[in-house]
């Protein structure tokens, strides 16, 4: 496979681009370093979303964060979906293209949710073949993101971090590290987040996601509907020292607040990144 490395996004904070903020962003571009969006929202043939994305892309570096490829599914890859993604990539030249370490379809039926794989040798071989297939079509490496899970497979012998590290080694993909997901899994299943984080290959981690969760009883749910929690900020400080400064995204999907709240959170991330940059000098 021959892939080219995309131009990097600066190691600063960006925000998730959501339609509710389009007008505000166009009228007064916020002081953030970059933006990320879900490519599936721009799979239409025309109309305002594509034109708005064009205008925003002219002002900000962009990352495309997919939610619909169903990388871990045992169904064949949806090549129509992949072609649409490639068309968007060619048009908008995003710095990163990412997907999730998950599956979401079987027997041609989609659940449009991020479902966990068991971390087995079979899953690893399957996932790596799929990542290879996607990277070959897209002609570039992708980043894969760790997800939250709300179940435990009985037979899942490979630790998640080792599973991701091996996928990186075999396919040349990178890692999008979602620290909120790490924290949510750690609380829900009594895990040590640092055990996972220290297993990841440092250079492979190219982007970090920060988001908020909601509590449902004893469970934490990754809703992307709250500010980043103090515990996750704490993990972020640790991660920026361990991995070095990385482009960092404030993700917010539900219960969407005014744009200024996202910008404030990005500023907070930038302050931590700034400390990390200063320490490196």
């Amino acid at each position: 496979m021959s892939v080219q490395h995309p131009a990097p996004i600066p190691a600063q904070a960006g925000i998730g681009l959501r339609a509710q903020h389009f007008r505000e962003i166009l009228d007064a571009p916020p002081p953030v370093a970059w933006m990320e969006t879900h490519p599936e929202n721009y799979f239409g043939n025309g109309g305002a979303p594509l034109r708005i994305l064009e205008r925003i892309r002219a002002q900000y570096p962009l990352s495309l964060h997919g939610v619909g490829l169903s990388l871990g599914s045992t169904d064949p890859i949806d090549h129509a979906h992949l072609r649409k993604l490639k068309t968007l990539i060619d048009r908008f030249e995003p710095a990163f293209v990412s997907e999730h370490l998950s599956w979401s379809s079987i027997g041609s039926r989609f659940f449009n949710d991020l479902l966990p794989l068991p971390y087995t040798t079979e899953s690893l071989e399957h996932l790596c073949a799929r990542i290879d297939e996607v990277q070959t079509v897209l002609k570039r490496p992708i980043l894969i993101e760790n997800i939250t899970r709300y179940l435990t497979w009985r037979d899942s012998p490979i630790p998640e971090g080792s599973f991701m590290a091996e996928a990186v080694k075999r396919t040349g993909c990178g890692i999008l590290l979602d620290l909120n997901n790490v924290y949510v899994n750690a609380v829900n299943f009594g895990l040590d987040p640092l055990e996972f984080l220290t297993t990841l290959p440092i250079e492979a981690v190219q982007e970090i996601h920060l988001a908020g969760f909601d509590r449902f009883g004893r469970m934490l749910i990754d809703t992307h509907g709250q500010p980043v929690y103090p515990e996750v900020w704490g993990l972020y400080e640790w991660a920026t020292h361990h991995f070095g400064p990385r482009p960092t995204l404030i993700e917010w999907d539900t219960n969407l607040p005014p744009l200024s709240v996202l910008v404030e959170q990005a500023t907070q991330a930038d302050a931590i990144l700034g400390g990390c940059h200063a320490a490196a000098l």
Partner: protein
Amino acid sequence: MPRLCELQQAFAEAVIEGKHSAVTSAMAADGSALRSLALYRRLIRNNYAQVLKITYPALHRLVGACYFGVFARGYFKHFPSISGDLFRYGHHLPAWLQRIEAPPLLVELARLEWACHEVHQAADSAPLAPEQLQAMVSADPSRVTIQFHQTARFLSFHVPVHRVWQALQPDASPDAAIDLQLPEEQTGLIVVRSDGKVRVIPLAWLDYRLLEALSQGASIASIERFAREAESGFDFTRLMTTLLNLQVMAGISVKEGICRTPPVS
């Protein structure tokens, strides 16, 4: 341990049909399996309900979250998602509402909203060039047909459903009463997109029938003849002016030759 494919099929069976045994045997035996599956089922259903709410915002406002949730759950059972791209997920909602014998107004409102949803992201088209208009004017009208932009949809209803749709738009006054007792009246609408915004424009019924026939490939001459038969003294020039003002013509075909504006990339 079942193979990955079997595991994914077992999970699907549990979420869709409630058949848990195959998948729970592959999950941790700590008593959490059924709770986990219930959580996933809830998250998945909520996602789809949210997609339908975004696709059918006026319908959601009209019936309220609770009633809408009932529709969404029924729809989820009968119309599974077949794509990682959720744009077309709600395509069958009008048919589903009809099947469950929902009030006809809701079916009609859903039809209108689906058209708006499609038009919102339909392919862009350039306006008709002056030389094409000239070609239309100078050609034999019996040989001229018109292609319409993909950003235009003709829809007919038995009630003026657009009044309810309009009253449910975010910019409508929240205090204005919505009259749901719509009179029985043939209603023709064109849904168009201009400057990125979707508009719903009511047309006089005869105008609608004529323009809709044009969009189906009828020639200019044939609709002119039909108009004069339907209404003596029909002002055909006014109709053509209406058509021009709508800015929905993508191309003109003169039999034995096509004159079409290429789509905008």
